[in-house]
């Protein structure tokens, strides 16, 4: 135990040195560190939002609405298909996650099955008694769709956030259908929330002037009634439009906020070539009629087509303020979200509070270090001093590990550091108490030291491991602040094992060699 091979001494010293070197960048401002020459370590501990200030937003992708939309499309498709094939049915409706209907002639089930298969191969068809049929998406298809929708949503969210000019945003998937946004420096996430609050699905559809809006039950097939929110019509106004989409918003290449000829805020848009041609063709053959600009299932403008619009660009006027025009332009540029996002959680910390927290956390940690250091000096004298040196290296190693791992330091994380500093000397206490005991038991100096380190090791190992178990559980099951705490706690436990056992021992051994004492001051 008291024999240290050269390589081990070198290794211990190298680790200590590396710990100190990797800690140093954290003592300087980020800008200063960036100017350092390339060979110096530059990684710093990244601060959590609770310390640097910023917004954390948790969204859920609303898969239900996607499912409902798809089911509704299937309803339309079935109606068409059954009409052409002259298959009689009753009670065709979407219910929750499935479509149900009843065949008038149950024996034609195979014909119906063929139509369904052609419509959407992902549908599972179950035939009940007396022609009752239910259609459901199979789980594999649902999962694939979910994966796709969430991936797409993350991409669109990223584009929208980038458009807002937020620096260093983190956008990540969490679980199956959630998206986490971390926006450092964003003090008021209202704008971000508004930007993400709409899917911004835009389509251009023709208005059906012949259908009366009041009479919903006698709607011509292929038409739908939508609320009209163009800023001039009374609230609650409705308008009938054709379901067929002339041109959809995903053919837009650009959108900008602008002003119309009366100086009212408006949104300018440009189609790509495909969209421009389609828009040109449709407007050419529908001069004098109205078309509807549909945004998220509401008609925001329904202008009369005065002449064919061939240039591939247009302007939306209506009930915009300059802010809402800006927002819509941004959303159109970034693209439509495939599904609505529901905000589940929002946490925003202002920069002042963050700075206060860093202050409080640092102060508490420093006081904790001073108290523990003083305590060890008082109760163990010179050996306490050795433990204190080890404690300092332990602190450096913790900070170095956090920097290396790119872990995020949160306020509970700082608490974890302070706490592990208190716990770290436990290993020293165990060893020293054991040495005292062995000395009392009449052993010689060297053999007492030997026995102290040897016997205490098992105990130290066991007692540290249980804390590590709790740390790992917190990391895997906890969220946000708890995770931050778990990281520092676990790292602290591991580094303190190293420092308390190896660094302390190395000091004691070299002290023994240097001074060859007759008694030890313990």
């Amino acid at each position, binding site marked *: 135990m008291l024999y240290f091979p050269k390589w081990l001494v070198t290794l211990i010293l190298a680790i200590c040195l590396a710990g100190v070197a990797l800690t140093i960048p954290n003592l300087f401002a980020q800008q200063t560190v960036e100017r350092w020459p390339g060979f110096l370590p530059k990684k710093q501990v990244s601060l959590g939002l609770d310390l640097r200030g910023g917004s954390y937003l948790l969204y859920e992708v609303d898969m239900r609405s996607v499912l409902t939309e798809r089911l509704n499309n299937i309803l339309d498709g079935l109606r068409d298909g059954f009409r052409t094939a002259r298959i009689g049915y009753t009670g065709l409706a979407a219910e929750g996650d499935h479509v149900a209907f009843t065949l008038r002639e149950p024996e034609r089930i195979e014909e119906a099955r063929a139509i369904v298969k052609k419509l959407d191969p992902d549908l599972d068809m179950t035939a009940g008694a007396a022609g009752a049929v239910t259609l459901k998406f199979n789980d594999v298809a649902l999962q694939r769709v979910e994966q796709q929708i969430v991936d797409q949503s993350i991409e669109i969210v990223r584009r929208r956030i980038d458009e807002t000019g937020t620096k260093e945003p983190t956008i990540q998937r969490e679980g199956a259908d959630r998206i986490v946004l971390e926006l450092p420096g964003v003090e008021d996430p209202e704008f971000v929330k508004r930007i993400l609050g709409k899917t911004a699905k835009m389509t251009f559809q023709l208005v059906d002037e012949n259908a009366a809006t009041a009479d919903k039950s006698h709607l011509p097939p292929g038409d739908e009634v939508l609320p009209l929110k163009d800023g001039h019509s009374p609230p609650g106004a409705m308008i009938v439009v054709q379901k067929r989409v002339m041109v959809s918003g995903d053919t837009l290449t650009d959108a900008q906020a602008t002003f119309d000829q009366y100086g009212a805020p408006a949104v300018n848009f440009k189609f790509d070539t495909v969209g421009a041609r389609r828009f040109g063709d449709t407007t050419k053959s529908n001069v004098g009629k109205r078309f509807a600009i549909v945004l998220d299932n509401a008609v925001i403008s329904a202008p009369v087509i005065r002449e064919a619009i061939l240039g591939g660009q247009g302007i939306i006027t209506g009930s915009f303020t300059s802010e809402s025009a800006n927002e819509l332009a941004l959303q159109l540029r970034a693209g439509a979200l495939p599904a609505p996002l529901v905000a589940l959680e929002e946490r925003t910390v*202002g920069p002042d509070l963050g700075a206060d927290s860093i202050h*409080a956390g640092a102060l508490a940690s420093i006081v904790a270090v001073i108290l523990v250091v003083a305590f060890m000096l008082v109760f163990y004298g010179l050996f306490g001093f050795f433990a204190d040196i080890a404690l300092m290296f332990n602190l450096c190693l913790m900070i170095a590990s956090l920097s290396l791992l790119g872990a995020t330091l949160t306020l509970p994380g700082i608490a974890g550091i302070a706490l592990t500093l208190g716990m770290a000397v436990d290993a020293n206490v165990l060893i020293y108490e054991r040495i005292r005991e062995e000395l009392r038991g009449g052993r010689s100096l060297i053999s007492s030291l030997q026995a102290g380190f040897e016997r205490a090791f098992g105990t130290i190992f066991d007692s540290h491991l249980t804390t590590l178990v709790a740390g790992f559980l*917190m990391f895997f099951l906890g969220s946000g602040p708890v995770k931050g705490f778990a990281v520092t706690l676990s790292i602290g436990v591991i580094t303190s094992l190293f420092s308390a056992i190896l660094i302390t021992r190395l000091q004691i051994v070299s002290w023994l060699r240097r001074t060859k004492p007759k008694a030890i001051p313990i």
Partner: protein
Amino acid sequence: MFHPVVIIRRIPGIDFMGLHRLGFALSALLTLGSIVLFLVQGLNYGIDFSGGTLIEVRTPGPADLARMRGTLDGLGLGEVSLQGFGGPDDVLIRVARQPGDDKAQMQAVAKVKAALPPELDYRRTEVVGPKVGGELIQAGVIATVLALVAIALYVWLRFEWPFGVGAMLSTLHDTITTVGLFSLLQIEFNLTTLAAILTIAGYSVNDTVVIYDRMRETLRKYKTMDFRALINKSLNETLSRTILTVSTVALAVLSLLIFGGEVLRGFSIAMLWGIVVGTYSSLFIAAPILYYIRPRRASRAKEGEAPPAETQRVS
């Protein structure tokens, strides 16, 4: 160079086993009391778990709580509570969970912000929807249960099953009474408190393991020693270490409690209690319980350490 202060020069002869019935009774009382408190009074759940809205604002001058309360009560958002937080110009506004879905929570914040004067500094805004709150409770309970089981399993593997049972019971006692303390004082119970409880579970068993380790050693050394005396001996021999370690951790936690700010207060209180009660339970529950469920004294060879002296002599 330095002269260390030795608090315990000679191994004391405290009769812990003589006090163990008293300890058991006290612990039973504390545990039962905590359970009753939890069931009757419940916990003051922070918004992490209950869902709802929390806004911390700093007013330019000393805050006029009454006026702010009047303004916010008129919004029809249900229960709105205001309290000072740290300094006189810091106010913590808590809006109860809104009926309806997650969207309703977000709208409540907008309403509050619109109603309050514009010169306020919003230091912190937290909105947790009902969905996430429910999940966090679930994850928290699972984590705590798993921690207890994992610790018991570990101790069982490293020692023998009676030790595992003892460690689990004393750790359970520590976590339950910590929850009881939070119920009694109605301190906000949030995610950081949960982290504290898990840490307590890990830490309190630390003490227990040290004592068990010593008991195992003593069991090997003194094969015929009366069990009661054996427990007492082990506890007394480790007492100095117990006191010193508890002190260093307590020092760290105390500085967190005093200087760590409002946000960490709940955490620090939980930790402080956990350290004290964890030490107590190691001495008065974990150790004496082995008097009743005794580990076998003849099975030391399988521990993977040096075989007993007799066998060595034979070979």
